[in-house]
């Protein structure tokens, strides 16, 4: 069972493996630069626990849990 982006603790990195979505939802995530092989870092969580901000290819982008859970990743540690 592969972890998804929303399980990555703040401060940790992960490698994108696959996007578990289709159609426009997938395209939007791809557009943000979440293509397989991309290194992503979870940089911060909103005070209420959701959404989470990720550093994706140099830009900090906030994703809600629902979106982040579509992104399959492998953990890289700190």
């Amino acid at each position, binding site marked *: 069972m592969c972890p998804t982006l929303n399980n990555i603790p703040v401060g940790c990195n992960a490698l994108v493996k696959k996007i578990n979505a289709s159609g426009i939802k997938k*395209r939007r995530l791809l557009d943000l630069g979440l293509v397989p092989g991309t290194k992503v870092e979870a940089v911060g969580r909103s*005070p209420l626990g959701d959404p989470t901000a990720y550093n994706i290819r140099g830009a900090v982008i*906030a994703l809600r849990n629902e979106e982040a859970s579509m992104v399959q990743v492998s953990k890289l540690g700190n």
Partner: protein
Amino acid sequence: MNSDNSMSSLLKEAQGIIGPQQGQMRDRIVNSIYQTAESIAASTVSTSGKVDWDRKIDKIITSKIWGFPIMLALLTVVLWITITGANVPSSLLAEGLFWIEAKLTDFFMAVNASEWLHGFLVLGVYRGLAWVVSVMLPPMAIFFPLFTLLEDLGYLPRVAFNLDRFFKGAGAHGKQALTMSMGFGCNAAGVIACRIIESPRERLIATLTNAFVPCNGRFPTLIALATIFISGSVAVTFKSAAATLTVAGLVVVGIAITLLVSFLLTKTLLRGIPSSFTLELPPYRKPQVGQVLIRSVLDRTIFVLARAMIIAAPAGGIVWILANTMIGDTSILALVAGWLDPFARHMGLDGFILMAFICGLPANEIVFPILIMSYVSGGAMMELDSLKALRQLLVEQHGWTWLTALCTTLFVLCHWPCGTTLFTIQREQKSWYWMFMAALIPTLVGIVLCIAVNYLVRGLGLV
């Protein structure tokens, strides 16, 4: 060059060539583009030992402990600077403008102008303008630049980030926090900003609830009322502080109502689940302070003020005519106010207040000036050159209590948006129905809220 057949066959051909893998094409294409970008960037960019300040700032600004306190603190500080800073120039302006009024009156007397002409032009048109300028200009000239500074710094997306969980819970879009923020400047601008929300359902929710954010046309009224009443009882030193906290509290109430109404809309008229949400938190930028000042004062302030004046001038004249045209021994104004009075009393208001709101449909800025004019033009003349005089007019001559002020304040926060905003909603949504709903929803909320507060306070015997 033909045409239809060859193009459709082209598409078929494309499908044929790529086969069942067509669904994968976008991934592979995007992947290649990003890889190319990556390799070019790798050989053209060099970095040396960077300290990521943005990250450090964000850690605090969006932290569990400090996120919300900082938001509240910034709101309060901005309002405090606005209120404290506006006090002196406001009364100076009022003094100056009413001094000119006296000179105008002298002039009209000197040339033997008719009573009617003097009343219409000086007591109606000019006084309306003088009120709008002296009440609105100073707070706007302070609030707009401060707000623009925060906007240019890049703080607003962080607000959206912090508040998103609430909006998600209400079935709304996280960017609604951004459109709401724009509403502080002007609700019409807030409605236009709703374009950034993709999902039509969520865009509509953001549009319909934008009026719950007090725009700049309403801020001065809130500030004036808070300064007169809420702080009336406390020592001078704490006056601005008390007024500030009151207005900040009202903003929070407005946000709470926004969330509640969004939630109710999601459960009733606009059912649905939240669409996808992504929000970039852009790097902080050093605002160009000089430009911000020039732009926000010259462009925004003058623009909003000019609009208010254009509407206030004729409105002032008309109100004067209504107040001085007698049917029997009551003026038309008093007649209409008397007719509205029973209902207004349930809401903790009086007929004149409700009428001022109705007359203020073209622009919220003129609600308070109209109210004062209609109070004044019927009765004794007085120099309204300070908030003290205003307090006297409201409390001693028209029997206002703090409850009247509270209910008026709540109705300022929750009633139909101004004409410009409604027009903008119609244009953006291309629907008369939703424009009507955008007026109806906040009005209903306001009426219910005022009645509830009025009866609750009276029931508890607090007034």
